[in-house]
């Protein structure tokens, strides 16, 4: 076989390409053959003649003997090996016995020629496969561009961005930040949770009725904040009242809202009671 160019590569590709024609090597391993035709081809090679000059009769006998040998070893044989054996036995009889009256049946010679043709064709295809596999193959011996730049078909979607995009993005965001550094950073919205947290922290330091806007004043330095701080802390303080933690007092509509620690007061009440 021609498949000897690259021993390592070949044996991977050709699994058992170098099966020997040796009779002895044909031991019992029918599994190694790809069907009866493959086995016949291997046997034919033992005749060491051109396949066009092969004796099909001798080959048939070889095959039958081999199968018989396997059966004596009580090996299970796939059905197609046995079908081939039966066909070869029939072929043998047709070749040996005088031809029956000419009819539609192909003659023994025609059958033998057909078999010889099939063997030659199989061998030819094997050689062709070997020649194919020994060509300079793309990705094995010869290589395409390793880093193709997408032209025709784009297999995977790539992210596109230019250095200009990158620098623009960086510069503009740094610039944005520069601007916000100049102004005092402020929160636009005081959340209920924040208000509640601040109020809770303060409860302990409230001695007596204290206007809520007094101790919220540090958070209300700008008019924008005033609304959100008042709204959130009012809601939060109502929550705290409901939970019995503070008391609220307002003398009249729109007057200042006063707040004091309920616990402190509560203890007094308890003492009183």
């Amino acid at each position: 076989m021609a498949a000897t160019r690259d021993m390592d590569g070949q044996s991977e590709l050709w699994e058992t390409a170098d099966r020997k024609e040796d009779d002895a090597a044909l031991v019992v391993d029918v599994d190694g053959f790809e069907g009866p035709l493959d086995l016949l081809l291997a046997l034919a090679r033992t005749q060491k003649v051109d396949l066009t000059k092969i004796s099909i009769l001798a080959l048939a006998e070889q095959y039958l003997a081999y199968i018989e040998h396997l059966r004596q070893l009580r090996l299970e044989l796939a059905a197609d090996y046995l079908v081939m054996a039966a066909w070869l036995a029939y072929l043998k009889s047709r070749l040996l016995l005088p031809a029956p009256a000419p009819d539609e049946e192909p003659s023994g010679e025609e059958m033998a020629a057909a078999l010889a043709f099939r063997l030659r064709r199989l061998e030819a295809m094997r050689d062709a496969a070997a020649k194919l596999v020994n060509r300079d193959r793309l990705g094995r011996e010869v290589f395409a561009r390793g880093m193709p730049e997408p032209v025709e078909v784009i297999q995977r979607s790539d992210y596109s961005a230019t250095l200009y995009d990158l620098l623009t993005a960086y510069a503009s965001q740094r610039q944005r930040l520069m601007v916000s550094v100049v102004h005092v950073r402020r929160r636009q919205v005081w959340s209920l949770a924040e208000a509640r947290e601040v109020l809770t922290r303060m409860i302990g330091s409230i001695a007596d009725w204290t206007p809520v806007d007094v101790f919220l004043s540090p958070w209300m330095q700008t008019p924008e904040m005033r609304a959100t701080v008042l709204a959130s802390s009012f809601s939060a303080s109502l929550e705290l009242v409901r939970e019995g933690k503070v008391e609220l007092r307002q003398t009249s509509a729109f007057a200042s809202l006063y707040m004091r620690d309920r616990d402190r007061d509560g203890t007094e009440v308890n003492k009183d009671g």
Partner: protein
Amino acid sequence: MADLGNLTSLAPEERRTALRMVEAMLFASAEPLGTGEIAARLPEGSDVEALIRELEHVYSGRGVNLVKVAGKYMFRTASDLAFLLQRDAGDQKKLSRAALETLAIIAYHQPVTRAEIEEVRGVSISKGTLDVLMEAGWIKMRGRRRTPGRPVTYGTTESFLAHFGLEAIGDLPGLEELKGAGLLDGRIPPGFTVPEPRDGDALTSDEDPLDPDDLLAAGLTDHD
């Protein structure tokens, strides 16, 4: 004169630019490009063939060559430098002997049905074998044979040609000898019909197009 006019009328500078463009396009692609694809991006009236011939010449002795495969052009490394690069080919798929033989039979006998492949090999092929070849992108379903049962016919793909460095199916190694020996042509004993390998996707007179279902089933093989 009219035909050559376009080329010869190019100023040297324009010609050089066109050459650079062809070079860039072919170099950028890992797939073979046809002259049509190349021409589509060149200035109108460029003589693509002449430009390619010139590039072929420029690169002929280099580490990278311009070759024609599957009727298209691609750059690839020079084959004498295989020793240098083979270690790059780490994750090659290993083809079984059965798969390789099947591939050869499909290549030389296409369009060919599964039954015909089995007839040549004298053994049935496992479903996996054709799948592996289709997955590798080397074979595809072509159509259906107009015989009872309408069996699917198989043929090779463009990437088969590219992979094995063939310009066309007619360049398959030993094709002429096989034909001459009658192993591919009609001179065969009764009961054996072996069609000749045919190029191209055009269906033969005894092939029908695939049904929509076949195309769905073929899936990845239909990309070419």
